[in-house]
Each structure stands twice: as structure tokens, then as C-alpha cells.
């Protein structure tokens, strides 16, 4: 982006592909129409962009593709409100605006050589998919665990990828485990042969029987607000340091750059902007800044 450009200007992207992941979520594959902008668009797992549907509004959304695969990027969008409803009506070939990437992202370089425990709940899979593929593509991490909890089999995002890793992940030092709360007839596809890796229950049930070297493990969590408490308790029970627990958080955001004030959290001793100081925080940040989780 050029120096003198307006901070709030958005760049054209073309929708290359729209894929239904579940009845509620769609995966959008996007590419900047300007090749120079496309080349200059560098992001880290855990960062987000602001999507601009011109004339209708803007909304923040995390990037769910990995920077190791260049030329395009992907957003997983759940139909949850006014803006995402517009987004879901878009078709391949349509042009929308993007600005960003914003936020700090996960410290992927710092975590090299360690075990990664990814804990995802529902839509929380989106930003963690970026980490998952980044870790698998780069091959610089010891072992990758993915614990993924969803409502039902039908709600599993990126189902093809996840079930593929469920079957063949061990060859890539990757253990995938799934938990679903509601049983449905299609669960039979999973349980056949993967019983210990797939269970009915919540995401914390998946920790059972797993041992990590707490001196060489980082946990990365993303999910609905209620999930953090339980997952963090599980991790702390295993004496994983609060500095090794990373969470990515959601807030109302309008600007993405620390101006509009909506994402301010904290008290008189510590104030954080989720958009620019986060959205990735350690559990230690949450302990020292009230109201983060």
C-alpha cells in the first residue's frame, strides 16, 4: 500500500470461489485484482481483514488460509448478522473491498520447534485453520494436536480436510480429535474406525489420554466466549504456563486500527485494544487485563 493512501480505503478483490461448508458457513476464496497489491499483501496466521461491501458496510473477519500458499486468501463467513447476510449473497466473480491485514497474529516464529495444541470450538476453527496449515506446510513444529469441538457432525467446518487429517495426520505429526455434542445419523462416518479420536461430548473431553511436555508446548485457542474458561482450566490443571496459552478474541470493531474505540477492554490499570494489541492474547494478558475473557 502506498504511503499517502487513506487508511480507510479498501482494495478490490475478486471472489474466485464460494463454497458451502455448512448451511450457515461459506468459504470465500479471494484474490486482489491489482497484482501489485496482491504481492504486497502479507499476513500472519491469526490476523484479520476488514471486508467492505461497498454501500452496505464493513465487517472484520479472520483469515482462514495460510500465508504459505500465495496468490489467494480465504475467509470463512458465518451468516450471523446483517453484513454477513449480504456476504452470503455474493457469487463467484463479484468484486468486494478489503483492507488489512490487521492485528498481531500468532507468534509462529517464536513457537517453532514446539508442540502446538490447537483447541477450536465451532467457528473458532477458522483462524486456527490458518495456523494448522501454516504449521503443516512449514514443517517446523514438533507435533500438532487439533482438538475440535462442534455441535454436530454437520457443523464441522472444512470437513474434507479435517477427516483427511483424522485418517492420515499421524504421518505428518498431526493428531486430530473431534467432539460433537449432538448425535446425528451421519456420525457413523466418523466413528467407524476412529472411536478413540472421535467422541460425543465437549472439546475438553478430547484432552483425556493425551500427555504434553509442558516445557515445550503452546496451546492456541479459539471458540465461543464460554469455551475459554473450560479449556483454560484444563490446560492450567496440566500446569501449562499462562504465557504459553494463546487465545484469539472477538469484539465489535469498526476501524480495525485502534481509533473507533469499540474493542477497548480492561480497567484503569490496563487497557487493551483487541484490534491492534490483539486479537491474539496470552492467558497472562487476560489475567492482567480484566474483561478480556
Amino acid at each position, binding site marked *: 500500500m502506498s504511503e499517502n493512501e*487513506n*487508511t*480507510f*480505503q*479498501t482494495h478490490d478483490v475478486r471472489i474466485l470461489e464460494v463454497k458451502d461448508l455448512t448451511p450457515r458457513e461459506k468459504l470465500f476464496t479471494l484474490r486482489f485484482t491489482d497484482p501489485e497489491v496482491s504481492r504486497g499483501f502479507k499476513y500472519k496466521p491469526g490476523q484479520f481483514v476488514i471486508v467492505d461491501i*461497498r*454501500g*452496505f*458496510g*464493513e*465487517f472484520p473477519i479472520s483469515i482462514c488460509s495460510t500465508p504459505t500458499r500465495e496468490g489467494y486468501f480465504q475467509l470463512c463467513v*458465518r451468516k*450471523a*448478522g*446483517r*453484513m*454477513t447476510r449480504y456476504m452470503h449473497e455474493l457469487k463467484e466473480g463479484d*468484486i468486494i*473491498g478489503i483492507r488489512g491485514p490487521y492485528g498481531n497474529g500468532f507468534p509462529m516464529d517464536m513457537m517453532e520447534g514446539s508442540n502446538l495444541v490447537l483447541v477450536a470450538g465451532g467457528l473458532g476453527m477458522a483462524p486456527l485453520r490458518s495456523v494448522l496449515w501454516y504449521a503443516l506446510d512449514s514443517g517446523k513444529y514438533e507435533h500438532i494436536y487439533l482438538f475440535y469441538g462442534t455441535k454436530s457432525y454437520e457443523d464441522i467446518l472444512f470437513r474434507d480436510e479435517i477427516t483427511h487429517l483424522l485418517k492420515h495426520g499421524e504421518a505428518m505429526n498431526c493428531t486430530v480429535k473431534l467432539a460433537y455434542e449432538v448425535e446425528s445419523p451421519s456420525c457413523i462416518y466418523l466413528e467407524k474406525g476412529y472411536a478413540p479420536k472421535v467422541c460425543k461430548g465437549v472439546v475438553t473431553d478430547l484432552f483425556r489420554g493425551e500427555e504434553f511436555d509442558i516445557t515445550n508446548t503452546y496451546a492456541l485457542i479459539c471458540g*465461543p*466466549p464460554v469455551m475459554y474458561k473450560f479449556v483454560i482450566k484444563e490446560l492450567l490443571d496440566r500446569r501449562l504456563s499462562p504465557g504459553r496459552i494463546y487465545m484469539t478474541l*472477538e*469484539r*465489535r470493531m*469498526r*476501524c480495525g*486500527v*485502534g*481509533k*473507533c*474505540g*469499540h474493542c*477497548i*477492554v*480492561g*480497567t*484503569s*490499570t*490496563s*487497557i487493551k485494544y483487541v484490534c491492534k494489541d490483539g486479537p491474539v492474547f496470552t492467558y497472562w494478558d487476560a489475567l492482567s487485563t*480484566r*474483561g478480556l475473557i
Partner: protein
Amino acid sequence: MRYVKLPNENFEEFFNSLKNWGNIYAPTKQGKIYSFRKVETLSEVSLDYNRTMLPPKKFFIKPRDEMLKLKDNKWEECIEVEKIVLFGVHSCDIHGLQILDKVYLEEPVDPYYKKRRENSIIVGISCMPDEYCFCKSLGTDFAMSGFDLFLHELPDGWLVRVGSVKGHEIAWANEELFEEITEEDLKNFRAFEEKRAKAFKKKLNKEGLADMLDLAYDSPVWKKYEKICLGCGNCNMVCPTCRCYEVCDRWINAYEAVRERRYDSCFMASHGLVAGGHNFRPTRLDRFRHRYYCKNYFDPEAGFNCVGCGRCDEFCPAKIEHVKVLDEVREALE
């Protein structure tokens, strides 16, 4: 700091000369309140005003502000810039603007704020505190920077502090109106400041304020005020450092739309609401406490977010007093 003296007889001529630098906006009396309005003559200006309802932030971040204009599915920047001279700004408001500068001029720069700030001249003026002012407790009662010229009242004129090159240029252009200051003037200046320092009725106990508030997260005082507060958001609108804004796209006709931002308030239930219906500050208690935490956060570089102007007290329809709330929270903790 450079000091010069502006004798009373030259004051009007000096005021009129400011028009060469832009349109003059100054505090004027509007019914029961004061407001920064465009003025043509000195007689319209209320030099001894206590506070305007809206702080000078309204010139830099407008209550409704067009950011981008949609043409052929492309956003075009719309920045209308007017050269302005803000005449008669109190030191608390100058501090308020400096806090906004920290936010809006930090990378990535807000282009609208920056352009307007660059095209403005700030002329400060000395004041006497009324029953709402507590700027002295916060150290914002005297501005050392953030203005171009600052006028201090003297019995026979004004002691003018020159705060910037631009200010110097203004004084230079009107060289014949100014005099060198004398010992007598400095004595009068000091006497005025001393008198002013003694005139403060309201005091904020700043000692360990940030820590005290953090410890009082579950204080019963918040619960008490949750019931008194109407949640109207007046305090946000009139606060010189409140800066939350909401963005929305508005169609002007079938072909053109504008992206607009307007003041938002953390007292609105929608402030912490996200898509899907989760609200991060669902109750009025959360929102009331949030404002106090935001205002009293001590940034080592910028200080408190509150400048003690007293606007939120004066314009609160429920008569909630900022200092009193903080005192009660402290009391409940001890």
C-alpha cells in the same frame, strides 16, 4: 516559551487580524449554554465563558462525518477542510485535543483528523474555575503545548504565550500591536494564577487512583449508580476525549453512497454487541464501569484520559458527578 503583551486597546484589532488565518470560531452564548460558533466580531465572543457544551473535538471529528464517497463502485476520499482559528480554548480542552492527537495521529494516521488539525490554529485563553472544574487535580489546568497562542488575562491587557512557529508568525504579522512584557505584567500574571489556583472547589484524589479502581471492580457503588444512570450517553458526547465512533454506509441516491462515521457512546447496549447476538457489556453496570475505567486509565505517556473539564457533571441529566463517584468507590473500598 516566548511571551509578549497585547494591550487592551489593540485587542480588537488583533482579533480581526486572525481572520487572515482562517474562519474564527469562538465561544458564544446560546441560551443557557456556550457553544463554539463562527464569529465575525469580537462582541459576539464570550471571553469569560465557563465551558462550551461540545468540546473543540467537534471541529476535528465531526458528530457526523463523511469519510468516503462511492462512485462507480470505488471509494473516493472526501475531506472538506476549512482553515479555522479556534479562539478562546481553555487549557483543559487543549489537553483534551492532545489526548485525541495521541490516538488519531498514531500510525496508521487518521487522514481526516490530521488534515483538519493541520489547518487549524488554536488560541487559548485563561479562565476561572466554576463549581464543576477539577482540572487542577489532574494537572491539565495549564497548557504547556498544543496551542499556537495563549492569552492570559491581565488588568490592562493580555499576556500572550507563543506556543508554536505558526503562533510566532501570527504575532509577527501584527508586530505593531504587541509590546514587550514588563515585570509588572509578570507579577499580575502570577497573581492571576495564584487566585485561580485557590478558586478550585472540586478536587479529585488522584493518589493510587488506577490501582484503587482496579481493586474496586466488584464495588457496590457501581451497582448503586447503575440504577441512577439513565444510560443516555450525554457524558460521551460532551467529553473532550471520548472518541468512539460508529460507521455506516448511507445511500444519497440510487447511484451514490457515502461512508459516514458518527459519535458512538459506550452507554449504548449496541456498543459491545457482535454479530450472532453476543454482548460483551450486556448490563448498564458493565457499561457505566467501562466508562470510568476508560477515563481513569493512566497511560504513562499520555496521562489520564480525563481532563477535568466538568462537562459530564454539568450535562448529566441524572446529576451524576464524576469525582463523587470516584470518591464513593474509594470510600467503599476502605
